[in-house]
């Protein structure tokens, strides 16, 4: 097998030096001449009619250069389920919704001006609990939304405020339950986890005299952002250029247009000056997005030997005031039925419900995470009922390459069994589960994940790339893909370098700039390595072909006899008959006037068949073992160690994979044990990093991550996604480990000391 020069290696990040020296440019660092500072006025009511917004006094404040209210906007509903306005016009539906914005010479003036805007509200009845919202007669979050029929306990009934329903049934679960040796049903609930990217949302907008807008934004998807901005500002997307600087974390929270993007743009248009808006930490918690709190009921039927025969899941998701990506998230949650373990009969009912809580949206794990918490917790319960080892029951049912799942997925490659075997071995599962000291426990959980998205806003998931050879033999790679901290710029440079035969250091990347780079859907669905990676590989191959075409003359060989490696082009088999890339570049450009510019595009193969969730292959897989220690007197859980194995197809950069797994474990551990945005009638009680706790380096466990390489036939060099999937098994692995340690099962995240103490001291009677 040919060895690789640039991939499969621990290549340091291409932007690493800038990042660690503080030289990297983030949105907040962008400073333009005559730039103004913008602030947003937000609703103090969870639900109210906006009767009148009077901004006259604010406008008269010295140093205030523009004020906008809903009336100054086109009032368009945006989003993939268009139900939200960038600035409220006649109604507010959650505390924190934008109602007006100000641009001023500095932040203090803007802040003062906000306090002078008077808004007349007529408070309306509000609803905060999804099951209450579903009751007929509950206040309607969106007026005029008709009740719909849902199924409850086999009966059909009407429910209010349901914004989206997803139901499917494959096979015959009722019959399978009747025939199963054992059936159990459990209910799980998950909390509102916030992204807590250390860099808050923000944007700098600059309208030029010709009406063209340049916007620097902390975003995961510049191209889709341009579409939403163009639509809400009533202008053409081609008059908008979005530039994504370095992004300090996003985790799904920066996929959508925020009021910061829209208001900065509109204020700039009004003031004829650049405007910067950066969110405060408080705004991050109250006015962006959070992980959907869900109630999940799972009913599973098994045979005595542990074979799964049927699984039924019902989910009620608290969507908050607007849909955001919620309905898609719900579909992905349902798609977890039969995706990881072979289950012939599956049935799903998912309800996405409006409430007057802040909006729920995309978050690493995208609904699959909540579903997996429920299913993986229940797998352990089933294993115990049947007296089977939790790892064994998973191995027994694990899907394998070549299968088509009951949900209709074509599994092109699958290392699930290898992942399980790997973590079982590396964690010492068999011996240590028996020999651990008291109150220590091991827990296992698994995951699958997508490597590309379903259709988004009607678009098939696709990416493109250009590769340009410079006259000094170096290369510029242009991609639309957005590096939001996960390291995709580095991965894509490695792929281009490998395909072209140059060192990674010879490649410069221009990414996520809608004017310079080709189109891309953005960073989500763990899709960049697979989708953009394939595009980059094709573009690099195209550039190489163009180069060989011309260089062949110089080397007196046929193009097809040439090879490129380590920065040289040479005749196969005779490395001496060759040119350096620099010599080759000089030759093709100077002597022949040829410009080598490779192009590549790749589209995921959408299979619009009868799959319950049409996300095309490949799928990544993983398994993790958590080791915990529980203090039974204080209820505190210490996560000691995580052993993880992930089938990423091929690890383009093992260091990148480890980073993603480590980050996932810490974020997942936060979700499992502490993180929870708390509300009191829709108002966030803990909108700070002091009161909303995320784990620190002191809590971070040792993480041993390894790659299982199954070389997917469709992936670039066999690679698939890995990033998001790695967070999916964390919480159930911890929950299962806690049970192993102290015999207490908590189905309700986060698993706090309060809950543990309560469960431990519960008398057997109650």
């Amino acid at each position: 097998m040919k060895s690789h020069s640039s991939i499969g290696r621990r290549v340091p990040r291409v932007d690493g030096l800038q990042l660690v020296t503080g030289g990297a440019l983030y949105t907040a660092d962008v400073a333009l001449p005559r730039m103004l500072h913008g602030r947003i006025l937000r609703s103090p009511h969870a639900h109210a009619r906006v009767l009148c917004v009077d901004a006259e006094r604010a406008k008269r404040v010295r140093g205030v250069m523009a004020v906008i209210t809903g009336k100054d906007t086109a009032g368009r509903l945006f989003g993939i389920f268009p139900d939200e306005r960038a600035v409220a016009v006649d109604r507010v539906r959650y505390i924190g919704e934008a109602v007006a914005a100000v641009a001023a010479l500095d932040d203090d003036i803007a802040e003062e001006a906000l306090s002078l805007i008077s808004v007349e509200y007529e408070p309306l009845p509000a609803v905060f609990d999804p099951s209450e919202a579903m009751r007929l007669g509950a206040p309607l979050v969106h007026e005029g939304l008709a009740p719909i029929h849902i199924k409850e306990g086999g009966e059909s009934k009407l429910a209010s405020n349901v914004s989206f329903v997803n139901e499917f049934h494959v096979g015959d679960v009722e019959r399978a339950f009747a025939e199963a040796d054992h059936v159990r049903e459990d209910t799980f609930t998950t909390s509102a986890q916030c992204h807590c990217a250390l860099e808050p949302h923000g944007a700098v907008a600059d309208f030029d005299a010709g009406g063209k807008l340049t916007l620097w934004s902390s975003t995961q998807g510049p191209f889709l952002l341009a579409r939403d901005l163009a639509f809400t500002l009533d202008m053409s997307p081609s008059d908008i250029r979005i530039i994504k600087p370095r992004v300090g974390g996003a985790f799904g929270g920066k996929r959508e247009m925020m009021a910061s993007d829209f208001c900065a743009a509109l204020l700039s248009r009004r003031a004829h000056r650049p405007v910067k808006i950066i969110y405060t930490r408080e705004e991050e918690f109250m006015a962006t997005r959070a992980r959907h709190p869900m109630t999940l009921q799972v009913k599973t039927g098994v045979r005595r030997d542990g074979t799964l025969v049927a699984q039924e899941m019902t989910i009620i998701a608290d969507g908050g005031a607007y849909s955001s990506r919620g309905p898609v998230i719900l579909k992905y949650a349902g798609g977890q039925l039969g995706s990881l373990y072979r289950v012939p009969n599956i049935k799903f009912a998912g309800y996405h419900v409006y409430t007057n809580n802040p909006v729920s949206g995309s978050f690493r794990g995208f609904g699959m995470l909540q579903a997996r918490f429920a299913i993986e917790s229940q797998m352990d319960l089933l294993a115990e009922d049947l007296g089977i080892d939790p790892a064994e029951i998973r191995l027994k049912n694990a899907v394998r390459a070549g299968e088509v799942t009951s949900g209709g997925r074509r599994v092109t490659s699958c290392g699930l069994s290898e992942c399980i075997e790997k973590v079982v071995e590396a964690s010492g599962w068999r011996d240590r589960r028996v020999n651990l000291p008291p109150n220590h426990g091991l827990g296992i959980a698994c995951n699958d994940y997508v490597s590309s998205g379903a259709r988004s806003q009607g678009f098939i998931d696709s990416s493109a790339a250009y590769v340009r050879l410079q006259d000094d033999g170096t290369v510029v790679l242009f991609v639309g893909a957005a590096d939001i901290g996960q390291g995709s710029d580095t991965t894509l440079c490695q792929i281009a370098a490998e395909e072209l035969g140059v060192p990674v250091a010879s490649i410069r990347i221009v990414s996520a700039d809608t004017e310079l780079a080709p189109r891309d859907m953005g960073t989500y669905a763990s899709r960049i390595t697979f989708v953009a990676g394939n595009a980059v590989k094709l573009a690099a191959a195209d550039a190489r072909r163009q180069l060989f075409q011309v260089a062949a003359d110089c080397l007196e060989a046929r193009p097809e006899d040439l090879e490129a490696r380590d920065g040289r082009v040479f005749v196969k088999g005779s490395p001496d008959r060759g040119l350096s890339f620099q010599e080759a570049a000089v030759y093709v450009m100077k002597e022949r006037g040829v410009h080598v510019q490779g192009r590549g595009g790749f589209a995921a193969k959408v299979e619009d068949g009868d799959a319950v969730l049409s996300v095309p292959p490949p799928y990544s897989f993983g398994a993790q073992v958590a080791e915990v220690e529980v203090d039974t007197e204080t209820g505190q859980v210490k996560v000691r160690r995580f052993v993880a194995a992930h089938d990423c197809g091929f690890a383009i950069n093992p260091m990148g994979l480890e980073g993603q797994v480590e980050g996932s474990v810490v974020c997942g551990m936060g979700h499992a044990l502490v993180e929870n945005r708390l509300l009191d009638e829709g108002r966030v009680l803990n909108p700070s990093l002091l009161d909303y706790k995320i784990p620190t380096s002191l809590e971070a466990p040792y993480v041993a991550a390894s790659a299982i390489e199954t070389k997917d036939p469709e992936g670039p060099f066999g690679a698939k996604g890995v990033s998001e999937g790695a967070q999916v098994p964390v919480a159930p692995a911890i929950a299962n480990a806690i049970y192993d340690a102290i015999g207490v099962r908590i189905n309700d995240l986060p698993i706090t000391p309060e809950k543990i103490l309560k469960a431990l001291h519960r008398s057997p009677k109650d």
Partner: protein
Amino acid sequence: MRPFEHVDATSVSDAIALLKAEPDGTIIAGGTDLLDLMKDGLASPRVLINVKTIDGLDRIEADAAGHLIIGPITTLARLAEDARVRQDFLLLSEAISVTASPQLRNMATVAGNVCQRPRCWYYRGTFDCFLKGGNSCLAVGGRSRDSGIFGAAECAAVNPSDLAPALLALGASVVIENAKRRREVPLESFFTAPQKDRPGFTVLGRDEMIVEVKVPKQPVGSRGIYLKAMERKTWSFAQASAAIQLSRAEARVTDVRIILGGVAPVPWRASAAEDVLRGKVPTGELIERVAATATDGAHPLGQNGYKVKLAKALVKRGLAMLVDNSRS
């Protein structure tokens, strides 16, 4: 935020004169609490009187009788590192080591710490609760996870300080001055429940200044321990804490002070538990009994029952460790 003036005081009498002259004036020390209160609109002084510029207020020394004298602007970080403190008053260092974060400990002062305001999220957030002039305490029937289990009257907030229980366990007092007089107040009567017009936890008048914190010399062989249950290992207020100072002669306990933090508007002295232990030989069985008594009289609200268990567990563990330590 209201615009304000910032004045550097040159002496204690200067600071006190400024306080008297300016009814809207407030002392600022490290500013780690006060500035946040101002940004959140919970305090809006017109003049900030900076006492960090006063010479000699950061002293840590022993007086003739061997009592420890701590200047009010001594930072938490310096106090924790002081050799004498580490030698004779380790309890203080332990309490500080789990307070806030290293950055905050470098700024925060001893007097500022004992004067900090409630951390109740209704108080710090945009809610109209009793303490802010509203009708009722929102925590009592609401999210009471962090509220007190003892002594809650109109306001169920807990005193969030880690230093305060430790100082109390050592029998410390504060020396307070105003334009007219200087008085020494034992910490036990310094702390009180917050009131509408006085949202701090102390009896300090608005024209008064803490000029000294006094910690009495402890008997030879006396030992202390500070244990704190928190949601994460740093940058986290106490869910419950226990400060214990134990003196023994032979095997018998001659004196003990058990102070619970994070459970009441004042550092809560578990007197009944102390009585069970005093004069006895601390066996495992006795320690269990002491711990069980530590939360006598607790009245948990809807969501904070776990604090009772935590407090008991910390007392039990702390005593066990102290007894074990002094043996070795």
